[in-house]
């Protein structure tokens, strides 16, 4: 099986993670622009971070045979630093149309302040002007209200729901999101966000239409194998293989591939120039199928598939 992790912060992860991800069958990932765990104090560091998403991190992933895409934007937390926000918004156009930038994101609400709303709206307008897909981060506190508000504002700005992925959903938000025609992504992150047994039940209840899973693995205690593990758990617990494939691969490709910056051929038949430069002729990607079932070889027991 092939997997996509459409929301993961690889800048915070080590090469051990890349090795395990590649062995587990992850062929592509999307790294959205986020904050560092502590505030940036000047636009220069934000710019260098954005450069790393299209530069060093893209290269680093390729060394393990994984295709790295990104979302570019001003995140919800740092929208509250208005002086920084203004400068960052002026920088964004230099990145938004680069190769492999699949969406504007991750944007939205954190505390649901006026500043956050202002810059969310401004970026929705940018996305609309540039015909981009939008990745929306929903707040972890007061999530239900924040999620609905995020969707209503997107519609207000004329962004089509089919062009918006609402991320970090849970049992309380999923119905609203699906009903309104948005993509519903779920972050499988131990302890604080979705657990994967719960995810299995969501799949059982709602099927696979417009449902996506991701790990949002970052600098905290999180699992960069959340997507393949959850897919495996779903299969074990009787979710149809076709649905599992959509939830863990095909839907992410459909949602984020809408602007043509991400396509299956990128990892199945990479362009010669990419073979020579990004992958340095790495044979993992010479049209071969990614290694399957290597989950067995990773030193973790089957019962560790489940995390709460």
């Amino acid at each position, binding site marked *: 099986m092939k997997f996509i992790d459409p929301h993961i912060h690889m800048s915070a992860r080590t090469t051990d993670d890349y090795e395990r991800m590649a062995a587990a069958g992850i062929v592509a990932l999307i790294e959205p622009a986020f904050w560092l765990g502590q505030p940036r104090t000047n636009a220069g560091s934000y710019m260098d971070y*954005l450069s790393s998403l299209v530069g060093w991190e893209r290269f680093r992933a390729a060394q393990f045979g994984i295709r790295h895409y990104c979302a570019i934007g001003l995140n919800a937390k740092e929208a509250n630093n208005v002086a920084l926000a203004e400068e960052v918004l002026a920088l964004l156009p*230099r990145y*938004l*149309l*680069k190769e492999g930038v699949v969406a504007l994101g991750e944007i939205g609400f954190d505390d649901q302040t006026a500043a956050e709303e202002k810059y969310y709206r401004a970026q929705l307008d940018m996305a609309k002007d540039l015909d981009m897909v939008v990745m929306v981060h929903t707040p972890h506190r007061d999530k239900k209200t924040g999620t609905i508000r995020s969707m209503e504002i997107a519609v207000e700005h004329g962004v089509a729901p089919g062009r918006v992925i609402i991320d970090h959903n849970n049992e309380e938000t999923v119905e609203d999101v699906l009903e309104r025609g948005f993509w519903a992504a779920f972050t499988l992150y131990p302890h604080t966000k979705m657990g994967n047994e719960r995810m299995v039940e969501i799949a059982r209840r709602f099927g696979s239409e417009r449902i996506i899973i991701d790990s949002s693995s970052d600098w905290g205690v999180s699992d960069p194998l959340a997507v393949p593990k959850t897919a495996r758990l779903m299969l074990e617990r009787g979710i149809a293989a076709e649905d599992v494939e959509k939830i863990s691969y095909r839907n992410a490709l459909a949602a984020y591939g809408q602007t043509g910056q991400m396509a299956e051929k990128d990892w199945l038949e990479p362009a010669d*120039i990419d073979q020579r430069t990004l992958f340095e002729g790495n044979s993992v990607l010479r049209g071969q199928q990614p290694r399957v079932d290597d989950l067995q070889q990773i030193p973790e027991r089957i019962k560790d598939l489940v995390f709460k």
Partner: protein
Amino acid sequence: MTARALLAGWLARQLSADAAAWLKNSAAQIQASSKDADLYLSVSLVTRKVGKTDLALTEADLREAKAARPDWNPRDWSTDQAARVLLLLALEQEPPRLARALDQLCNSADVSELIAFYRGLPLYPDPSRYLARATEGLRTNIKGVFEAIALRNPYPSEQFPQAAWNQMVLKALFVGSALWPVVGLDRRANPELASMLCDYAHERWSAGRPVSPELWRCVGPHAAGAMLNDLERVLRSGTEPERRAAALALRASPDPAAGTLLQRDAALAKAVAGGELTWERVVATT
């Protein structure tokens, strides 16, 4: 024809009508505009508009390239790289502006863009303006970017001071790049580099790691004294490619003792003297 005209011609020949038109209009707009925003936007859009396939160049094209700009070898350039360099060259009448734009572009470039901009170094006007940018570019950990400057690029051999040149050659060995595509490798050999390379070989031997046979190419012309011991060791106990490399290096050495050492292997000495053994042959068997 200028290099810029050649690039424009090759792209016009290879791209679809739409892509070629977009490129031509973008270049014209950049040249006419006083703001750099057009340049940044167009450069970003290149992959979408122009695609990225190898430039289809004939031997005649490559000869014309060398005639337009000595030692310029665009053999393995791609369409997106050529297009990006062409867009930047729209500013060639204003060298300070081009240099500033290049810095800005490099500061927010993705991997493909960096490779393109560095490959274009031999074509930018007022070459000394780019020295800091080029040496900065070599600091990268991204091998393709390093090689865009170090390999098949006449800029370093023409513009780098000796210390920067030496670090580049040493790094090429460090990161596992081939040396034979380094332009000016023989011309820029120097005693300090020879010494650094021998030290590096000693490090590798202590660690039980292999030494690239190509290393000795830059040692030979300045091999004297203790360095000859290293060459003798390789000649005596190296792999076949290493022994051939040592033979060539000994032949290039100005020290009379080198000739004596080389004669200990009559077959190799003969091959070197007869011209059958060259550095190209060494690399081919590596």
